[in-house]
């Protein structure tokens, strides 16, 4: 087996190259864009683990980022910053483990709407807790500088990409794909479906927890409606679908494309940006369900096929 196949090397090198180049441009603007881009890549790769490979589509992935951010502000001042972010990631993973057992029993479309409901539920619970505490948004002062956050987020994006590449090579990856194709059959031939699903779900929650904590550190502000905003889940799904969620390339392509689009449109025409996103999601699901990565594949296959065949 080769050390890395092209489809594995492309996303890893792309992330590494972008991470290396952006700081050379010497402006905080590019660091800020890079920070966001890597955040989305990490989120979309995490989503791919459970939704792309295992086919359990989550429309509520923001819940893990929200938990990560919330744990960070709760532990702010009590523990060192990075310990707080790590705790946020662990809390998100633990949450996934706890709710995963009952939630992952629900299959297909019911799982999908359940994830959305679960994220909204968590949002309102946190809103009510904060209201009861008399806190309406929390400020965080004296977080790490942008450059540090940038490198941390780049590391998360690389870790997420590496994780998807690695999982696809492991028995776990094969098992998850088998679950996606036919869960009953996978179960019958001995794939430990319950354990694999739960493991994948918890794994796909860890990085988002970390990313959520970093997002809070960057804005210096935590507000539940914002930290648990369903638009974040929607963006993750759109990125992964537009890029393609069969392997590690898709999330990178999707995040690059959507972040570029967002830089063009978001600040002046936020609604137009969202409308384009919605239209992209509909269009790709209907006409190119394997995303941009799938389109590349198709062109290559067409070029390799003998003429007229």
């Amino acid at each position, binding site marked *: 087996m080769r050390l890395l196949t092209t489809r594995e090397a492309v996303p890893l090198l792309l992330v590494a190259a972008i991470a290396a180049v952006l700081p050379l441009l010497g402006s905080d603007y590019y660091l800020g864009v890079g920070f966001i881009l890597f955040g989305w890549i990490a989120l979309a790769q995490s989503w791919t683990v459970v939704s792309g490979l295992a086919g359990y*589509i989550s429309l509520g992935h923001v819940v893990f980022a929200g938990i990560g951010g919330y744990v960070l502000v709760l532990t702010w001042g009590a523990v060192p910053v990075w310990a707080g972010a790590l705790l946020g990631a662990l809390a998100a993973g633990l949450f996934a483990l706890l709710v995963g057992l009952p939630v992952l029993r629900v299959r297909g*479309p019911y799982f999908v709407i359940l994830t959305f*409901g679960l994220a909204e539920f968590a949002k309102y619970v946190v*809103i009510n807790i904060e209201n009861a505490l008399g806190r309406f948004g929390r400020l965080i002062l004296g977080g790490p500088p942008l450059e540090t956050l940038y490198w941390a987020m780049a590391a998360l994006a690389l870790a997420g990409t590496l994780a998807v590449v690695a999982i696809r090579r492991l028995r776990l990856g094969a098992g998850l794909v088998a679950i996606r194709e036919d869960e009953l059959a996978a179960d019958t031939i001995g794939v430990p479906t319950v354990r694999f699903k739960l493991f994948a779900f918890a794994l796909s929650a860890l990085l988002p927890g970390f990313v959520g904590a970093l997002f809070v550190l960057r804005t210096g502000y935590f507000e539940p409606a914002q930290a648990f905003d369903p638009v974040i889940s929607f963006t993750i799904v759109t990125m992964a679908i537009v890029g393609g969620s069969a392997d590690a390339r898709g999330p990178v392509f999707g995040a690059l494309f959507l972040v570029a689009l967002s830089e063009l449109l978001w600040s002046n025409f936020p609604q137009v940006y969202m409308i384009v996103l*919605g239209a992209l999601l509909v269009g790709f699901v209907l006409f190119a369900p394997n995303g941009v990565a799938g389109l590349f594949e198709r062109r290559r296959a067409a070029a390799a096929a003998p003429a007229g065949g």
Partner: protein
Amino acid sequence: MEILLSGQLLVAALIIGSIYGLVALGLNLIYGTMRLLNIAHGDLVMIGAYTGYWLFTLAAVSPVLAMLAAGALAGLTGAALYFGLFRRQLAGSQPIERIEANSLLIFFGISIVIQNLTALAFTASPRTYQALDTLVRIGEVSIAQSRLVALAVCLGLSAAIVLFLRFSALGLSIRALIQHRTASRIVGIDVDRVQAFSFVLGFALAGLAGTLIGVTEQISPFMGFPFTIVAFVVIILGGLGNLAGGIAAGMVLGLIETYGVALTSANLRSVLIYGVFILVLVLRPEGLLQRRRLT
């Protein structure tokens, strides 16, 4: 304690329940006949609410008439989506599970598009308006006229649709389609026509209910999602294709919400609704699946 026993609260619960029942009826029709999970259902409620708002504000049209316009507008949206996007999907050879999963993502995208188009046109700021707000006294209970209208319309329409499904040829075809797609085609039902009709009717009902909701609730481009969730809870509780059961389930949810909020606080309303939603799905997803295995 005293307030819990008052007729006022019971009537409030019945009104909310009847609205939920009607909203869910549309979702049930579309899911039942086509296995399309319309996550944008609540956004049609929103469209209906805006229709009522603008007709009243600009032309002083009573919500009672505006709701017909809202139903027509939502129905047209439904027709455009059915013939533009979904007809081909349904006619294709894809397995039903694939269509179900894809429909969720497609409607998710449509929902975002509708919400943001509305926000673009009318800004994102919430609006309210005062119509039909004279209080009517019935014995101990006093109700705003608008809520009384909502109760009457929702119950009346729900009953009418149940009768329609039971006694008209088209209604029977819809029920046949809910029970078994392939068999309905074999016995000569024009599946495409029945699907188009159910799709448009489902959308129209949501739009119509939206006008009634908009009279008493804050209207904003993003008001729809809670109604989608509510509708899902109701059709899971009531059972797929069981339209009468859905109406009863709407009442149950109305009671749970009203008394739950009265016992705790209005802030907890969303927690309560989503909590019920999660419990129902985790404990009893078969409720929704009951007759699904037939296809």
